């Protein structure tokens, strides 16, 4: 029977190819536009650390201006002072934890003709790699002893290793960063979280850094951070030492806490530290220390901008318009065929038969619209990639989104076909037979 319905649907499509193409086109356009914006939204808001969603936390301490909060909604500042982060590092509660800053370096290899090249760098603790599940191709990170001694060791990203050592195992080699020798201890495998969640200062969707060094290395070189340094307190800062002790916030801090108990314990430690500091005249704001999961952190920092949300809303309104359009076209098409259906009904076809016959046709339109819509979405994302720099990883269709597109197209078509099919199944055979 189904085969017969397909034949009927096919002959109906053939009889009126323009109208069918219009319907498929309308659904495809709707799907194409809404899937383009939805994919962007979906990738931007996806969890960059899915296997540790309840274990890794952004550490926020509120030592900000007692007169006014950092954010209007009273959230604590996104970064820490150097001193507060150092105090956090002294706790042994977290499984892993790391203070970090971003900092560029000028890198040269031993090659005599080599010219210095600019690389982006992250100064952090050795725990960084284990905490964020960063994969290594060669070697490893460094241990706490190297952290404490500010050892001149470096981990290279896959790309940096490609650039400086042609992709070979460079562990043990030496590179010169800002004219100081650093020993390569590890090389990362390909690592590209969609959002650079651990530091949103300089572009949430940028690539991770090229090189990684112990946090205290740039401190010992008296470097500031690339990114934001915010200060609220009028204080005379005339030396690097004074800067480190100032109320300026400029470092990020993350911790891995595996259980609820561990999390509670660390939060208590943070609050205890704040109370201690309060006695010394700091932390004058109401207690407002926070541990946020990666997802909470990205939400609070509005990584997915209002623009993206708005585009999704508008494009789904567009899909709705396309749907209404399809309803109209399908209604026209089905009603046009009413006399034919009248004959079938008079010859004994049940109402269900009529419904099934038309549902098959609706389904074909839906699948066709979905497939063409996928092509439109692909083109749309191609355009988005060319309009935004650094969106290569965002504007990409994955299997999930393709399935979503097809499912959306079919349900859209079924929804659009619902009313016309119902209408055609309700026709009175007699009325249409009379005029034949």
């Amino acid at each position: 029977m189904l085969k017969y319905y397909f034949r009927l649907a096919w002959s109906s499509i053939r009889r009126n190819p323009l109208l069918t193409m219009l319907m498929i086109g309308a659904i495809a356009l709707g799907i194409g536009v809404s899937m383009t914006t939805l994919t962007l939204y979906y990738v931007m808001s996806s969890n960059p650390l899915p296997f540790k969603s309840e274990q890794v936390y952004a550490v926020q301490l509120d030592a900000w201006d007692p007169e006014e909060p950092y954010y209007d909604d009273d959230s604590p500042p996104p970064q820490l002072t150097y001193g507060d982060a150092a105090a956090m590092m002294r706790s042994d509660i977290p499984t892993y934890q790391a203070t970090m800053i971003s900092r560029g370096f000028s890198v040269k290899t031993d090659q005599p003709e080599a010219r210095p090249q600019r690389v982006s760098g992250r100064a952090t603790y050795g725990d960084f790699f284990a905490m964020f599940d960063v994969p290594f191709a060669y070697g490893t990170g460094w241990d706490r002893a190297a952290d404490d001694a500010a050892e001149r060791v470096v981990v290279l990203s896959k790309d940096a290793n490609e650039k400086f050592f042609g992709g070979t195992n460079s562990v043990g080699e030496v590179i010169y960063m800002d004219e100081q020798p650093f020993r390569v201890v590890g090389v990362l495998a390909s690592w590209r979280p969609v959002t650079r969640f651990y530091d949103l200062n300089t572009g949430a969707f940028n690539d991770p850094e090229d090189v990684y060094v112990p946090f205290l290395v740039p401190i010992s070189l008296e470097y500031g951070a690339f990114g934001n340094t915010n200060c609220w307190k009028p204080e005379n800062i005339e030396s690097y030492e004074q800067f480190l002790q100032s109320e300026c916030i400029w470092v990020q801090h993350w911790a891995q806490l595996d259980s609820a108990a561990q999390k509670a314990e660390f939060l208590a430690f943070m609050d205890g530290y704040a109370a201690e500091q309060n006695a010394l005249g700091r932390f004058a704001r109401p207690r407002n220390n926070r541990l946020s999961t990666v997802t909470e952190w990205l939400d609070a920092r509005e990584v997915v901008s209002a623009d993206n949300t708005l585009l999704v809303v508008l494009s789904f309104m567009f899909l709705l318009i396309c749907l209404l359009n399809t309803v109209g076209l399908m209604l026209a098409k089905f009603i046009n065929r009413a006399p034919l259906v009248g004959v079938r009904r008079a010859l004994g076809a049940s109402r269900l038969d009529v419904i099934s016959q038309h549902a098959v046709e609706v389904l074909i339109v839906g699948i066709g619209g979905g497939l063409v819509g996928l092509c439109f979405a692909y083109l749309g994302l191609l355009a988005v990639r060319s309009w935004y720099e650094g969106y290569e990883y965002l504007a990409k269709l994955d299997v999930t989104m393709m399935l979503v597109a097809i499912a959306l197209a079919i349900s859209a078509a079924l929804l659009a076909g619902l009313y016309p099919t119902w209408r055609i199944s309700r026709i009175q055979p007699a009325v249409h037979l009379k005029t034949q």
Partner: protein
Amino acid sequence: MEIRPILSTLMRNRTGAILIALQIALTMAVIINSVFIILERRDTMARPTGIDIDELVITRVSTVGDDLNVRELIENDMRVLRGIDGVSAVTKISTMPLSGSGSSTSLRSGDQQDSPSFNIGYYQGDRHVLDTLGVEITRGRWFAETEIIYDPAQGLDPAVIVLADSTAEAAFGDGDPIGRFIYTSTGNPIEVIGTYDQMSRPWYNWGDFYDTAIYPHVELNYLYALRVAPGRADELVPTIEQTLADVDPDRLVGGTQTMRSVVDETYQRDVAMNRMLAIVMCLVVVITALGIIGLASFSVAQRRRQIGTRRAVGAQKFHILRYFLVENWLITTGGIVLGLVLSFVINNHLVQTYNFAKLDAVYVPVVVLGLWCVGLLATLGPARSAAQIDPAIATRNV
């Protein structure tokens, strides 16, 4: 006019009309909100920065080493850069308008703790900032060579400062700012020696766009901004980078780009957003027009015999044409009324949730007119074919 019979026909055959009206309503909501956002972004992007964007190139050198003679290194670089054919002026400056990174601070207009304070974005640079960037001095004077401090100690406050006109107004109102003092948050006085007309902040959207000031400080890691002959910025970028790299092969030269490309990067999101909105808008109009054509053709086909009858009893072609156009106009107008409500509901949500600007009713009549036109044009084809229906058709098949 036969509005009443049209209405009663519509009421008896609601489905098609409702479908079209809903489409028009949604189309209207999409278009009004998109147009509004597009125009608003366009205004943001059109804000003048106060500098000659198309005649500037920036580049960066990083030099590492101890005991460097900062002033000598910089003066040597500047001499080399000025020697490039097509470069007319060079300055060493901490950052550029709209580049996205820079410094801001709060200053007070008096030396008391409760004196009014105001926030500024500030630039630090040498003597050539204004003539390189194309900014005019409006009052007082510019820095003297002796006032420029090379490699200042960390945290050093300047002794003299030049303010933007809008900053001077924020500090002193309409009074003459020259020779007066403003104070840092720790109470150090800075003498105002001059004002310039306009130079925007480094940030896209942070603080008052034009409240800026310039400090007479120069550091080695600042960038060089070069003024180049009109139309030659793009072509000079590689030459500038190469010339600077050749001064000392051990230094890192990078980030050489035209000021135009810096600004383009800053606004890239808005440009892309506007393009997407414009595309969605065009598609919406096309789809809606196609929908109207489809349904109008359908309703013409359904009513062939009634039309034939009307023609047979004396209606002229013009009457048939008018009937369908008026019918469509009624449906479109119904959709527009619904769409107006929807547009404002959506905008209200945007205003409250995302701090978007409130919808300006100025665009509404234009969009309404546009939609009426789209509706009538789309109906024209089917209506004309309806007018061609032969009166004889009514007498057949009875």
